[in-house]
């Protein structure tokens, strides 16, 4: 009897050792994106690390055609989750993720009714350059806004690395709440460790009123914006 009990305890102890500890479990934001009527939406989900609207872009992912996304995080904490889908007003959402846990969110997007007030991506160009710190990919994107109220969300996302970036404005801007200028925004992406393929890059721009461009993906050819019928 004693042997049996000891064996059970030993087996349970070994099983506990074999199980991953909570601290080792993945820290994840996962979710589903849909319309008000429940239709799934594909798009982009990008994260700011820390307080929302701080413009410190961190990770991101593509939202698949079933409306699902999953972002694995380096650590838990506060994040600003921004979800984009072409033809829809983007949705910002402040979230808190516990380390080692999975946060599930549901995001509902509403269509931009006219598209007349949306920012416009005019062109995207890729180049490369050698710098003192190594090789960089230079991405240039020309952007304008019909109301002159561009914000800091002139964003590039590399799906291969899962990294999101705010592109640098063509001139100095007083604060994140300022109206950002129309013009050519630039990103210098470090590719000294691994090359980058333009196919991996996706772009989206939102103004201060949440009006949002379509997501521009490879081959980065511009299409007229389409009004989504409710």
């Amino acid at each position: 009897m004693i042997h049996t009990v000891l064996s059970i305890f030993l087996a349970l102890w070994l099983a506990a050792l074999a199980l991953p500890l909570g601290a080792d479990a993945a820290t994840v934001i996962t979710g589903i994106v849909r319309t008000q009527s429940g239709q799934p939406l594909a798009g982009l989900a990008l994260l700011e690390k820390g307080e929302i609207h701080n413009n410190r872009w961190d990770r991101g992912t593509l939202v698949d055609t079933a409306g699902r996304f999953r972002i694995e995080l380096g650590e838990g904490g506060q994040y600003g989750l921004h979800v984009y889908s072409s033809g829809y007003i983007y949705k910002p959402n402040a979230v808190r993720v516990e380390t080692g846990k999975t946060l599930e969110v549901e995001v509902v997007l509403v269509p931009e009714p006219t598209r007349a007030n949306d920012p416009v991506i005019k062109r995207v160009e890729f180049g490369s350059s050698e710098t003192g710190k190594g090789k960089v990919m230079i991405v240039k994107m020309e952007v304008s806004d019909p109301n002159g109220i561009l914000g800091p969300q002139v964003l590039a996302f590399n799906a291969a690395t899962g990294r999101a970036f705010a592109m640098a404005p063509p001139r100095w801007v007083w604060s994140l709440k300022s109206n950002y200028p129309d013009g050519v925004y630039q990103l210098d992406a470090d590719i000294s460790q691994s090359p980058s393929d333009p196919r991996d890059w996706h772009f989206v721009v939102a103004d201060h009123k949440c009006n949002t461009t379509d997501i521009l993906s490879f081959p980065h050819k511009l299409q007229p914006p389409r009004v989504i019928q409710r």
Partner: protein
Amino acid sequence: MVRFIALVVIVLASAGGASAGAPAGGLAELVAEGERWWKSSPDPRDPVACATCHYDPAETRGWAASFPKYRPLPPPEGRVMTLFQANAEAVQRHYRLPDAERPALAITAYLTSHGAGTPISPGIVAGQAVFESRLRALAESVARGERLYARWCRSCHDAGAVTPAALLFPAAGNGQVESLERFLGRHRPELPRLGSDGQPSADVIAFLMSRLAGRPVSVAPFSVAP
């Protein structure tokens, strides 16, 4: 008795000398106006209104009860705001109106009416994430407000007696409607101006509302369906 007298004095003052029983019609009209601002953009070329994105009444029902709270505007603009101040900022940004005060006041009345009965819980919306950094900012605002109250208000108004009057705003009287922020700004003209859109008035209101936590939001004596 002292509390009752203090409340009556505040109500009279807030009504600009009108009787304490200011016609409810003024407030009812303000709530209805707020609902219009909420649901319709003033710019036909840009029909996106508050309700376009915030269409779910269940989502917005807890908003009035959760203010003052930290509003995460882009740095360095993020700060503790009252509901009225947050509405004014949003109206300016989204509707681009030169004078946001009236629509912000109307929307404040509408959201307050919509949230009537919800327990006051500054900084916290039921069912939404709670962020420690925001609660810290709110606690600092409450502490600043308490110091301002001690310096400017306590000689005439005991805080325990006067805080319930904060629930009477937006207030109507003599055909006028007024926010608590505006009232605080004009109440003692000999004192430094609080500024209805500024941090000091948000701090004083944060202090007052912190003392009302748990009480229901009210916009007596009527309510309007959302």
